[in-house]
């Protein structure tokens, strides 16, 4: 038997090592197809895709893209631009600092997936392909051409491992498919971006403003999507489009610039968030906004405990509950056992203090445990809180929390004579009740962000990270592990309590069933932890983005219903498999999860 070391045949590709595309089309034709396909995709969105307005978004108009067509238009334009940039067209080269090919593949994929999703959605919903107008066929065809063209672009193929001549057919098959998978991965990988030229700082600040404005626009668009199809299309386009920009190196350059002006970025992000209610005509989406903010703020508080100090807390929602209950009891609600109506500042202090006390009480005995044991015990305490709140109803125990009915009709807050419960006019904009609370919650979020940033970059923050990295060594360096962990726990708890005080007033009612370990609606402990893990542990932006996604997706995709938790679990498994450091990677964390990768020599400030 001769040793067979030739490359496995892959869709007619020549021997390994050279750079050819995944598909047997010459590279220059492929590039032309991809770019032209992108241009034609843009054109096709101006055609009618279906004959009836029954499909939501009205895709019947010539010359005026609507609904999903707009998304395809965006993806097609991105494809065309990156395609042109890959030709080295002057004035577009800034688009692809890390090489165009991988970005082009993702952009074409975005256009393809969105267009085909639309076409399939039209034909299934209206019953058959006959419902498509020529525009729909054209869109499907040109996006497919663009995708095929982009796949024909040359790929740096990894060298295949030689075969073991004694392999059975099955082993050989596994070997071949593993190598093919390597090639596909290589096709979607990109180089490292060239560093950003030193721009004058006003230009960099303008770039930051533009990035934040784009972020606000994308977020507002996503929150304002009116029907399921549009939201799914939005997720597809945004996901692949973001991947394309990431592969093109633009994201890396943007984060380099924002890292240079961290304070400006943080302030700008808050201003952008504060602009959100002004983009809305009614209070409908401000409601979602304020719930997202509550969820995200609590997730950020949890990130101090989990991300910085490395303490796995599975009962974190209990602290939110304690804050909410404490605030509701001093809110003057008729079902509160105390006849007490404190002003806002009093309620906030009471809520945060109650959570702090509860956090220390739980932390003191449990923080002597490490790892899994701590997780189990915190899970238990989270449930104890809920069951206790359920039982303090006057029959099973003293009447304090009003049992499963909870504390209801909590009056609206008044801050400095400003009634948050009613709509106000601001220079032509009507700011409704939920928008008011949105602003209040934004202040709380700012406090949490401030605490997170400042404590993370200090003696105590370094001690947290040291404890997480190696507890024994940290103790030997003179860190009182228990004390430091208790501080992390207490800080996390009181921040959650802070959010809880606002939550109680937003929802009017506080019941034990809002504070479950796992449920279909956030916030609950499992979702909070998922938001942190999904977004990226140890970062500020991570939990905020993770929480937004985890809140928006179930909220928008009503048709998922019973499969919601299943889909959520599946997504989490996939994410943990392919990007364990989360969507926004903390540099430090990324290194922990990708041990084998070559680490950069210098940890930049963004990693802290």
């Amino acid at each position: 038997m001769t040793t067979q070391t030739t490359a496995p045949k892959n869709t007619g590709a020549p021997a390994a090592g050279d750079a050819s595309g995944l598909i047997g089309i010459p590279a220059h034709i492929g590039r032309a197809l991809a770019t032209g396909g992108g241009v034609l995709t843009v054109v096709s969105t101006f055609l009618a895709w279906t004959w009836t307005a029954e499909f939501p978004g009205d895709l019947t108009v010539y010359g005026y893209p609507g609904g999903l067509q707009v998304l395809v238009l965006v993806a097609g334009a991105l494809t065309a631009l990156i395609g042109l940039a890959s030709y080295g067209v002057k004035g577009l080269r800034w688009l692809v600092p890390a090489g165009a090919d991988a970005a082009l593949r993702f952009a074409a994929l975005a256009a393809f997936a969105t267009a085909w999703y639309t076409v399939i959605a039209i034909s299934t919903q209206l019953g058959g392909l006959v419902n498509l107008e020529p525009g729909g066929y054209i869109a499907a065809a040109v996006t497919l051409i663009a995708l095929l063209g982009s796949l024909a672009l040359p790929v740096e193929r990894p060298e295949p491992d030689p075969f073991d001549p004694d392999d059975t057919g099955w082993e050989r098959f596994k070997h071949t498919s593993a190598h093919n998978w390597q090639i596909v991965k290589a096709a979607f990988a990109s180089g490292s971006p060239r560093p950003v030229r030193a721009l004058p700082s006003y230009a960099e600040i303008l770039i930051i403003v533009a990035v934040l404005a784009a972020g606000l626009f994308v977020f507002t668009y996503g929150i304002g999507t009116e029907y399921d199809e549009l939201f799914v299309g939005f997720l597809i386009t945004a996901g692949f489009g973001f991947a394309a920009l990431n592969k093109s190196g633009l994201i890396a350059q943007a984060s380099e610039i924002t890292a240079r002006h961290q304070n400006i970025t943080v302030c700008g992000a808050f201003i952008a968030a504060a602009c959100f209610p002004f983009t809305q005509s009614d209070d409908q989406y401000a409601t979602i906004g304020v719930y997202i903010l509550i969820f995200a703020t609590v997730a950020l508080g949890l990130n101090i405990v989990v991300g910085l100090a490395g303490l796995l807390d599975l009962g974190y929602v209990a602290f939110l509950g304690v804050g909410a209950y404490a605030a509701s009891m001093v809110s003057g609600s008729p079902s509160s056992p105390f006849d007490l109506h404190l002003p806002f500042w009093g309620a906030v202090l009471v809520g945060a203090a109650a959570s702090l006390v509860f956090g220390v009480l739980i932390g003191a005995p449990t923080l002597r445990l490490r790892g899994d044991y701590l997780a189990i015990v915190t899970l238990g305490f989270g449930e104890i809180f809920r069951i206790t709140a359920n039982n303090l109803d006057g029959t099973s125990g003293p009447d304090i929390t009003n049992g499963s009915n909870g504390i209801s009709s909590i009056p609206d807050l008044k801050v400095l004579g400003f009634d948050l419960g009613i709509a106000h006019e601001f220079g032509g904009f009507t700011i409704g009740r939920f928008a008011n609370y949105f602003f209040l919650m934004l202040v709380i979020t700012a406090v949490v962000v401030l605490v997170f940033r400042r404590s993370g970059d200090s003696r105590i923050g370094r001690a947290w990270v040291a404890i997480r990295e190696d507890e024994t060594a940290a103790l030997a360096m003179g860190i009182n592990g228990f004390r430091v962990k208790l501080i992390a726990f207490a800080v996390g708890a009181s921040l959650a309590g802070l959010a809880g005080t606002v939550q109680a007033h937003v929802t009017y009612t506080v019941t034990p069933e809002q504070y479950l370990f796992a449920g279909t609606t956030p916030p609950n402990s499992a979702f909070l932890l998922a938001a942190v893990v999904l977004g990226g542990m140890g970062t500020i932006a991570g939990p905020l983005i993770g929480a937004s996604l985890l809140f928006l997706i179930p909220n928008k995709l009503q048709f998922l219903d019973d499969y919601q938790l299943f889909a959520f679990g599946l997504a989490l498994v996939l994410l943990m498999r392919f990007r364990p450091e989360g969507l926004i990677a903390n540099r430090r964390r990324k290194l922990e999860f990708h041990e084998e990768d070559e680490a950069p020599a210098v940890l930049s400030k963004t990693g802290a």
Partner: protein
Amino acid sequence: MTTDTTTKDTAPGAPAPGTTILDARGVTMRFGGLTAVNGVDLTVNSGEIVGLIGPNGAGKTTFFNCLTGLYIPTEGEVRYKDRVLPAKSFKVTAAGIARTFQNIRLFANMTVLENVLVGRHTRTKEGFWSAVLRGPGFHRAEKASRERALELLEFVGLAAKADHLARNLPYGEQRKLEIARALASEPGLLLLDEPTAGMNPQETRATEELVFAIRDKGIAVLVIEHDMRFIFNLCDRVAVLVQGEKLVEGDSATVQGDERVVAAYLGEPLADDPGAAEAAEVEAAEAAQAQAAEATGAAETAEADTTTDTAAGKENDR
């Protein structure tokens, strides 16, 4: 080789040389039925470098762990500057004993500077509120800590790599960083657990110089090592631990000349053993070598090194 092994003049401000700073009396550590350390007495005087040697499994690291509060001795007591050591390792560090680990335990994903700053923890006070409010005191303390940490990095020769991740440093520099981190807690006694394991001869020499420099700062050093040349060059006194008991203690010559030490490292020939004659021959040769100049003993120690290096990390640091 002209390494000066006598005690140099200590830096001003250090405690007068000769006063006992560490005093371990009858330290016994039992794990269930196993007695890992049995009634060991050891003193370290200020401005002194003391070596602790012994075959693998002799209980050296366990003894170290007893000294640093990671283990609480079953019997006996350890006094540092006439005070019984507290039972928590962070309190021991605060009291003034710092240590390094046999298998390097840096905070791998923190930068070199951050690692040293963590070492400053016991000597700084800024708490959570100070970090959040960021008053002038916070900035002052943070700046002072940074300056001190950079000074220490300069001292061990890592200042140029302050922003590198600890995990990316080469092995020898990781050891140096561990020493810098330990020094950051401003100890009066530094415990080094195999500081040259896995190093090449040049790096070992550099470490030797570093330990002398540390001693010259007025910090007493207690060092575990398998590299005999290193130990005998460095130490004013050497204690030999075998099977949890202290066999001999004395200066280099005393220890090198002691038959029991040689036997503990190389084993004793069995009576009626077919290879007895050869073994005795080898032993005689080794003994002769050990007594001869250290340079000729290099081969033997190198041999001892290669055998022990493979076992590095096996011993339990907990």
